[in-house]
């Protein structure tokens, strides 16, 4: 590479790089640093350094919350993929003039505020709400059962919020997929399911990795959804961070939990990156 070209590339990269360092890397490091500071009773950050906060993470409550957070996020991702992959397949195979309209329908929910949509779910799932009554009427739910304020409600609403984000990268990959490969597989004796599994899924591998990341990471850090449709026994780590920040006024504790969450996000990202790199090099 010539020096001029390298310099030009730097010039192009620098603004976004500076942006990321100033507004993402440095604040993250500050949060990490605060986790090692003592808390003051007035809700501030004390002087000096301490490992006290980290030690308090050993409280048996936290592993349970972390575990719930991880499984809810993983389940959300799994359901989103299970729904998103067939959807992307159908979208990519739809006649061209229909595709944009269908894609628009995927995006339409974003025109309504996120909070409004979640409150709509609260109404739907409410013990006196239409869904509950309908289910009881057809005998699918007991009158005293609870649709709201539990992990199931969180999972449902998380899937609802994340699904469009999963569909878009899956569709982008499926749209580039050469569907003649499916015919080739069928021609070689594969059933339609086998062709889908052995040819289509590997063909949109990149899209699957991206969709996994864009659903898993926000789901891990979700706060509003469990806060509004979850109950006291279905807290996620985001709720705990908010509670420590706003209610308990213990910023070092909130910072420690945030760092834990960041690690939980970083791990799958690094794994996915490594997987993608392996796919690239033969």
């Amino acid at each position, binding site marked *: 590479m010539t020096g001029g070209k390298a310099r030009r590339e730097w010039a192009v990269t620098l603004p976004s790089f500076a942006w990321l360092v100033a507004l993402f890397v440095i604040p993250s490091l500050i949060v990490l640093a605060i986790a090692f500071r003592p808390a003051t009773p007035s809700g501030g950050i004390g002087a000096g350094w301490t490992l006290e906060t980290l030690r308090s993470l050993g409280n048996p409550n936290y592993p349970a919350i972390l575990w719930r957070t991880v499984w809810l996020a993983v389940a959300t991702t799994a359901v989103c993929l299970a729904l998103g992959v067939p959807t992307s397949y159908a979208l990519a195979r739809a006649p061209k003039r229909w595709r944009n309209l269908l894609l628009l329908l995927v995006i339409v929910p974003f025109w309504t505020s996120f909070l409004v949509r979640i409150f709509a779910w609260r109404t739907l799932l409410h013990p006196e709400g239409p869904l509950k009554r309908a289910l009881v009427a057809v005998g699918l739910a007991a009158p005293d059962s609870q649709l709201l304020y539990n992990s199931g409600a969180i999972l449902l609403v998380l899937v609802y919020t994340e699904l469009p984000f999963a569909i878009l990268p899956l569709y982008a990959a499926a749209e580039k997929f050469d569907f*003649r*490969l499916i015919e080739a597989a*069928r021609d070689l*004796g*594969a059933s339609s399911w086998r062709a889908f599994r052995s040819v289509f899924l590997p063909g949109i591998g990149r899209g699957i990795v991206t969709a996994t990341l864009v659903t898993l990471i926000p789901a891990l850090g979700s706060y509003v959804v469990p806060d509004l449709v979850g109950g006291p026994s279905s807290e996620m780590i985001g709720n705990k961070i908010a509670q420590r920040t706003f209610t308990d006024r213990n910023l070092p504790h909130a910072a420690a939990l945030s760092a834990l969450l960041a690690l939980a996000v970083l791990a799958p990202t690094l794994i996915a990156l490594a997987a993608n790199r392996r796919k690239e090099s033969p």
Partner: protein
Amino acid sequence: MAEFLEFDSVSKHFGSVRAVDGVTLAIRRGEFFSLLGPSGCGKTTLLRMLAGFERPDTGRVLLDGRDITDLPPNKRQVNTIFQNYALFPHLTVRDNIAFGLRIAGRTGKEIDSEVDKMLALIQMEDQGTKKPDQISGGQKQRVAIARALINRPQVLLLDEPLAALDLKLRQRMLIELDLIHDEVGITFLYVTHDQGEAMSLSDRIAVMNRGKVEQLGTPTEIYEAPRSSFVAAFIGDTNFFEGTVAEAVDAEHSRLRIDGFPDVLVFNDKQLRTGDLVYLSVRPEKIGISREPPADNRLRNAVHAHVDEAVYLGSHTRFWVRVQDYRISVTQQHNRYLLDEKPIRWDEDVYIHWHADDGFLLERYSESDENLMTIPGIDGAPAERTR
């Protein structure tokens, strides 16, 4: 021998387009059979019906006596070489070839030995671990062939398999395809718009136009005795003259009246009668060209002409000569050392001549008139009238 593969009056519509219109065809076991025609003539649809990707609206497809019309693609013992090869990009060459056997649930050992045999057949023993995007076009083509043949299909379908290759490679793959056909001995159904490919490979050819089979025959039959003006113009080059049958001169020959042209004699095998409207078709290489009129011969037509263009092409020279308002294509083979002769040049007055038996008559009706106008992609258009 009973028919091995049969299309029994199959038709297929796409919207208002009749892609395939009542085609009945019988293909023999072990035959190299070509479907030849311009794009949109229905040849690919016919192939896809056999592969199982399209279902005919009416009619049946029979393979080895069994009705396979409604079988899905994976239940048919036919395999396809796709135009773009359709190799699986995420699999190695080996795994691509092994795909069919894996689906069939064969053991690893069997698969390995079969794949090795196929890699040997296509001479790519040392390329097995490469991915499709690391091999050349010709190699992809060969992998596609191996991937299909490993399943021992009853029929191998080839959908314009050479279209994506450059000329040199195409010529080599033609020979390889021929060798492979001889070696495996299965039936090949070859779809192409390239008459050269079809002529050089096929045992028999079905020339298709607008969803119908225009003519079925050996390459020689189709070239020498085309049954319609479409076939005559699509296969090779030819000169067309519009004429009217005049009186018969003997049992087999008639005199033909052509507007602005001296009368010519023509072999009248179709028993056309005086007054019938016809096209006379004469292939460029059947026409001789000379400065002197040819020695008197009762059945040889000689016409005075003017050389418009002469293009020397090494093995032969291509002339465009003018007779009245006809521009006529004439090819002269150089069998002798040309520098010893005095070649005919541009702007000379010459005689063109052909034997009455070398021209053939085609009935003239409005549809073939239309057909003549819509022949795509022939090198050197047929003789055209320049008014």
